[in-house]
């Protein structure tokens, strides 16, 4: 209510010193407004860290309990695609950081370019994830959907993986727990992908707004805070990649 334009343009403006239109007048200054939104964004990101932290903890506990099953199940993941996606995501974080810089420097063209590049890199990440997911679907490695233990009770039946790792056949009671690995794999990468999808949708909105000159007026809070979100999603992947793909290559 206190944001009503009548008050903003009338009574308050008269006894306030001049400030830019984007400063809400319950803030003392633009800097205070920026610091406050930055603080709030970090509080949100901390709740996100706790949320993903639960998934990471579950993964570490079950990996410790059903170690042989988790090792063999992780051999199903393709390190090449995982590495490619890590590079794609780091690049998108870089283009996003450059986007924030462009907004700060009030360079509209560069900002739009950076946001479009981030948008495209985000889509490439999801595209590679789709390739990986469809492989799991073909092999019946999706938990709960006609899950197949064949690759684990008889590794030689899965020649592509077998020639790389030469895994020994697992007893049925341990092999069953590979389903738990894939459950956590889909839960963690799926939640991460959902964050990417939400981010890409917001990026699409931001590209339209940026083309209209919305973020190059000195008011960069939205771009900056979206950048924090995007980098946070990158950080989650920085830990998902070694834990899911890399650490079980040996043993």
């Amino acid at each position: 209510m206190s944001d009503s334009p009548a008050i903003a343009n009338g009574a308050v403006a008269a006894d306030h010193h001049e400030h830019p239109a984007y400063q809400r007048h319950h803030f003392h200054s633009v800097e205070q407004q920026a610091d406050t939104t930055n603080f709030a964004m970090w509080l949100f990101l901390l709740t996100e860290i706790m949320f993903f932290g639960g998934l990471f903890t579950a993964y570490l506990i079950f990996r410790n309990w059903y170690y042989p099953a988790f090792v063999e199940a992780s051999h199903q993941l393709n390190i090449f695609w995982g590495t490619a996606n890590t590079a794609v995501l780091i690049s998108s974080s870089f283009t996003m950081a450059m986007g924030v810089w462009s907004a700060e420097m009030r360079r509209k063209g560069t900002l739009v370019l950076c946001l479009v590049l981030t948008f495209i890199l985000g889509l490439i990440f999801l595209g590679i994830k789709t390739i990986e997911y469809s492989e799991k679907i073909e092999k019946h490695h999706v938990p709960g959907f006609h899950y197949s233990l064949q690759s684990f009770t008889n590794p030689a039946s899965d020649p592509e993986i077998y020639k790389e790792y030469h895994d020994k056949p697992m007893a049925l009671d341990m092999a069953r727990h590979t389903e738990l690995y894939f459950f956590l794999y889909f839960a963690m990468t799926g939640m991460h992908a959902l964050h990417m999808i939400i981010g890409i949708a917001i990026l699409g909105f931001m590209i339209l707004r940026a083309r209209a000159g919305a973020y190059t007026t000195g008011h960069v809070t939205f771009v900056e805070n979206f950048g924090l979100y995007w980098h946070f999603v990158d950080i989650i992947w920085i830990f998902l990649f070694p834990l899911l793909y890399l650490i079980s290559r040996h043993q």
Partner: protein
Amino acid sequence: MSEQTEHAAHEQAQHGEHEHHITPPVVYVVIFVTLLVFTALTVGASYIEMGVFNPIVALAIGVVKATLVVLFFMGVKYSTKLTKLTVFAGLFTFMALIGMTLADYFSRAWGRW
């Protein structure tokens, strides 16, 4: 109007602590390249047999990469004390929760294997 914003920007620049820090692109490029190098390192390390140290090295490299992202891409290095304290307190709480939970689960069958 533009004179006013210029004046405001100048005034802002004088306020030392409240100054809006603009990270130059060269910093972003250096961090970007470093992150790619560490990605190559962690993949390379996974192909070397190191026993129990494989996950430790992988996680250590992950922590270094995440720290670089938080400090530079997310600009925490140049942010207010409030933000720094918030990030640190959050990570500390996270480490305490995950650390104590894992210590419990990993030690339940201690000596019985």
